[in-house]
């Protein structure tokens, strides 16, 4: 047992050495046309060895460490409590959500422009995560290519505005519908797949869409992207200093106030807020409808669900389509916010982040997803002073989270009713 432990720890330490030595210890330098290989500073080597030792020590005492970590949930005051009654919980969640929305309405007038901008991004992620939550959290279909539908929404707006000069409000439903349609078309071939296979195929679809956008240069401009995407207007009022489109008026002139760049940012934020609330409400509605129960049933037990007469195709496709629809929604807002989009915004990492939000939020709970979206977007910003290590910190936070609360921040249903209370 102990010998086994030491061997394992030694193995881990050696792997650490093997991995970090070439990455940190060797550097390639360009000297004229030649590239030379040179070693790094001695301090780097010392650091690598120290890291290996740290890994060794950790692995030897791993069981003790993990045991201590496992006890950590006791620090969480909520962990040991009886699960709340379903009805009460839903009510509480509704109140909390309403509170958050009211707060969010007034908040942008109190803070800096940069914060509002970041908050808009958070709202976009909330929309994305709520949509993906339908697919992954409710229907249990692991979709790793979700970003594709986000891209379809964004590019629909960008292309339509470039070729037809469409406005944001027209593009919003079109982008969402097209994304939903794409979801349905891509959904068909993957319906028979489950688990890992589904994940791999959706991952492939995500990449195909991105590569298509990247290479279809005549239409999409390829890696150069598309710029000049218009901002939303408010009943024909623009938020720029000068009116760009014939027939529109400008916001500050209409109301006789001084021009300020902040108006535009706040307006975009408020639009994103309203759309996020609409998304949450619609999906909430779906969850209560029979189709919502069908998603859950299919996730819980496919054979049982089918034996009750549910059509696997219809149920899965509806989840896929609705999820994609809201990704398109978010994509349109994103395009409008950025004013410029390129395939670089729709890489796999985005899918991974959205998925992380859903998993962290507790698979299925809306409040959890919203809190997780805030945490996942804000945390890397807060950690900015750690510059290159911020993703590392982010990763560590995720790992800790999974150890501490594997079921996510706010799981839909608390998993167990404690039995000892009855005795």
């Amino acid at each position, binding site marked *: 047992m102990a010998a086994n432990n030491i061997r394992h720890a030694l193995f881990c330490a050696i792997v650490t050495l093997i991995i970090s030595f070439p990455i940190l210890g060797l550097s390639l330098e360009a000297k004229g046309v030649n590239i030379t290989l040179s070693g790094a500073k001695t301090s780097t080597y010392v650091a690598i060895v120290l890291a290996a030792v740290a890994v060794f020590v950790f692995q030897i005492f791993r069981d003790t460490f993990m045991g201590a970590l496992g006890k950590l949930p006791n620090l969480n005051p909520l962990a040991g409590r009886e699960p709340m*009654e*379903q009805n009460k919980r839903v009510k509480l969640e509704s109140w909390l959500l309403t509170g958050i929305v009211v707060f969010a309405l007034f908040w942008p007038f109190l803070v800096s422009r940069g914060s509002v901008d970041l908050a808009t991004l958070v709202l976009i992620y909330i929309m994305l995560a709520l949509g993906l939550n339908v697919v992954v959290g409710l229907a249990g279909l692991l979709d790793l290519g979700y970003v594709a539908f986000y891209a379809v929404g964004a590019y629909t707006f960008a292309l339509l505005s470039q070729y037809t000069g469409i406005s944001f409000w027209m593009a919003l439903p079109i982008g969402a519908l097209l994304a939903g349609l794409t979801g349905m078309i891509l959904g068909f071939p993957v319906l028979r797949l489950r688990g890992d296979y589904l994940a791999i195929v959706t991952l492939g679809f995500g990449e195909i869409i991105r590569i298509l956008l990247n290479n279809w240069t005549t239409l999409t401009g390829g890696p150069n992207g598309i710029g000049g995407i218009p901002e939303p207007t408010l009943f024909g009022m623009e938020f720029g200093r000068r009116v760009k489109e014939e027939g529109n008026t400008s916001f500050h002139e209409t109301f006789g106030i001084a021009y300020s760049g902040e108006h535009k940012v706040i307006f975009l934020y408020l639009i994103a807020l309203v759309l996020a609330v609409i998304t949450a409400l619609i999906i909430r509605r779906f969850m209560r409808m*029979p189709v919502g*129960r*069908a998603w*859950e*049933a299919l996730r*819980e*037990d496919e*054979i*049982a*669900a*089918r*034996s*009750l*007469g*549910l*059509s*696997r195709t*219809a149920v899965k496709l509806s989840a896929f389509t609705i999820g994609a629809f809201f990704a398109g929604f978010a994509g349109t807002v994103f395009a409008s916010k950025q004013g410029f989009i390129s395939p670089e915004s729709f890489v796999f990492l985005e899918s991974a982040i959205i998925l992380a939000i859903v998993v962290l939020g507790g698979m299925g709970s809306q409040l959890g997803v919203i809190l997780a979206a805030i945490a996942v977007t804000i945390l890397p910003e807060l950690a900015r002073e750690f510059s290159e290590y911020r993703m590392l910190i982010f990763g560590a936070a995720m790992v800790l989270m999974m150890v501490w609360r594997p079921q996510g921040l706010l799981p839909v*249903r608390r998993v*167990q*009713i404690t039995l000892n209370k009855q005795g």
Partner: protein
Amino acid sequence: MSMLVLEDVHTHYGKIEALHGVSVEVNKGEIVSLIGANGAGKTTLLMTVCGMPQATSGRIILEGRDITREPTAQIMRSGLAIVPEGRRIFSGLTVEENLHMGGFFTSKSEIRKSQAHVYELFPRLKERENQRAGTMSGGEQQMLAIGRALMSSPHMIILDEPSLGLAPLIIKQIFEIIGHLRDEGITVFLVEQNAHQALNLADRGYVLETGKIRLHDTGKNLLANPDVQNAYLGG
């Protein structure tokens, strides 16, 4: 009048044939029991009726309609219900939600009616209405599985080893309920390891051996048959 007819049904899992031409007939209002050793193909036979997997050849006729090539969703919405092997209740949903899933394709008022009926048959489920199904005992879960199947007011119910892993007292209760269902006019097709009780209750029985029907007769005659006694009733 036959409720369900299987004519020379073959079923494959990939290249392997699990049913080698099975013919079974279940008449309206009967309890028919199917017994056989582990791996004989009993579950396969029941699932083939439901269309998962579909029969590779032969015909399956439900209430005069050929369902051999119909998709599962369509078959299961036409008066047929199954209590699958291993219960397969939705463990994350509450008892009530499970029942409502069973009545997915019926109206609200029908659901209310069938729910009351199920609670009458299984008062235990009413007590546990809001409990998560996965936290219930095995017996309660089996009751729920049967209750869920009854929610669609089926003409025929198929049960795959409902007594699996249950205590004798609960088994007795479940068999009583099955007899009661027949009295209500529901046709029952029952697969059981518990051959003695299953044949005792049944009007007729079939013996399946490695994908083929070996014997069929009335329940009483099968019970008295020395071959059956040797192989399935412990001599």
